[in-house]
């Protein structure tokens, strides 16, 4: 099972993961062009208070409450990754109501958005993982 683990100990609170996430999901080819002048809507968020910071992204739970609670069937598990069919999602936010990590979030389109480990973009390492300068976000395989 693939999932991201977050090493709070190494999180610098630099927020680069959010920008790499937003860029990865923007479909653009140049970060500057893709993100210039906009307020980014990343699929993972840094929580920060004083010296403590950490990223929160979908945990791709073994028992994903969001998937089970989804009223439209637009959330599903594909190869261990909780994915959303944003065409189908009506933005009822039942998933927002049940996700214990607060990792499902509204998007501007009304449909929800969430981390899909960059599987929609290209297989491999999620942008937040490769973009983290300090190994605070790690992709785990198996387990």
């Amino acid at each position, binding site marked *: 099972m693939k999932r991201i683990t977050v090493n709070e100990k190494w999180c610098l609170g630099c927020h680069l993961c959010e920008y790499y996430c937003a860029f990865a999901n923007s479909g653009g080819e140049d970060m500057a062009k893709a993100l210039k002048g906009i307020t980014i809507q990343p699929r993972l968020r840094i929580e920060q208070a004083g010296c403590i910071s950490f990223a*929160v992204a979908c945990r791709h739970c073994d028992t994903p409450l969001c998937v089970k609670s989804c009223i439209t069937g637009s959330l599903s598990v594909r190869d261990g990754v909780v994915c959303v069919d944003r065409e189908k999602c009506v933005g*009822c936010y039942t998933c927002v109501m049940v996700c214990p990590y*607060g990792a499902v979030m509204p998007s501007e389109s009304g449909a929800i958005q969430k981390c899909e480990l960059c599987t929609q973009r290209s297989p491999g390492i999620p942008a937040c993982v490769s973009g983290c300068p300090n190994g605070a976000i790690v992709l785990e395989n198996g387990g």
Partner: protein
Amino acid sequence: MKYVIVGNSAAGIGGVEGIRSVDRSGEIVMFTDEPYHTYSRPLISYYLQGKTDIEKMSYRPEGFYCDNNVRLERGVKVAAIDAENRRVVLDSGASESYDKLLLATGSRAATPPIDGLENAALLFHFLTLDDAKALKSIVAPNSRVLIVGAGLIGLKCAEGLSATGCSITVTDIAGRVLSAALDEGGASMVQRHMEQQGIRFRLNDRIAKITKNRATFAGGQHVDFDILVVAAGVLPNTELMCALGCDAQRGIRVDSLSQTEVPGIYAAGDCVRCCDISSGQEKIMAILPNAYLQGEAAGVNMAGGNKSFETPIPMNAVTLMGLRVISAGTFAGEEHNAGDEGAYKKLFVEDNLLKGYILIGHVERAGIYTSLITGKIPLDTIDFDLMKAQPQLMAFSRSGRQKMLGGQ
């Protein structure tokens, strides 16, 4: 092993997926009195509104029954259960044997005791796709619509119809909208919002009499309508169990394994009565997440696994004409107001536990609050002030976060 499931909505589908997570090969027969592939009932208002279509309303992909090796019998009503011989009898007279039976019969619209209701020119309920289709086919921009019931179904119906430009009045005996899901303050915020969008409300008022195109209220005032929608709550479909001599009028009783008092028969979803852990009361919590989870647990147990559904609480996530509302649990105990501008937020605390919450406007990360209720997290183990301000994992202890997020 042969499984029979009555009902093709969330609880029934949960049942199929629960069974198949344990038993890949047992025979599954599913009966539904509707003619459709499984669809999401809550989406009928979106359908009405034109925000979705029949295809997108499919609760599961097209190949669902085939992939899960389910024999779906559509448009077939189960008339009775022969529990002794483990058979269900269909209204055609035919019967089907079962080893394990899941009742996921759902609910039906309640009919309020209003004088002359049957005289209404056009009377609708708003529970099924057929209801929505019928309503959609008849409503016109100049229609006058009276909706009886300001609960979730009534308001969603109002939202769905408002897209057509028709004039809408919502009436309820209760003094506020969404009386089951919101407190006074929240309800008035929602009401105000919908009124700004042109919906009229007549609350705290009782219809005394209905004639063809007119509803006359107890105080003598009247509202004329072309279309009358009755959305005054639902009743569980429990006749099959009642016929077996069970006391199930107010919902089928099940244990935490979703098993009824009759051996081999399980029940799940809106037809079931169970314990709300936030209040400790037994009630029907007719919401989709509960239906699915309960159906899934039933399926697992039917197939020989062991899964209990122990965290049912009432909860609602709804968007009404752009206003986001999420509430969960019971609104009892000490109230904590933490709303900011343009948003409403209330947390209810009792015995060092979060019992319920209401969020209107800003609903992000509400699930963290939900998890505090269902997980019965003692509030003195977290930074509750922080948590009150924003639902956030920062409020947990470092080791608690580590457990949640993995890593160091």
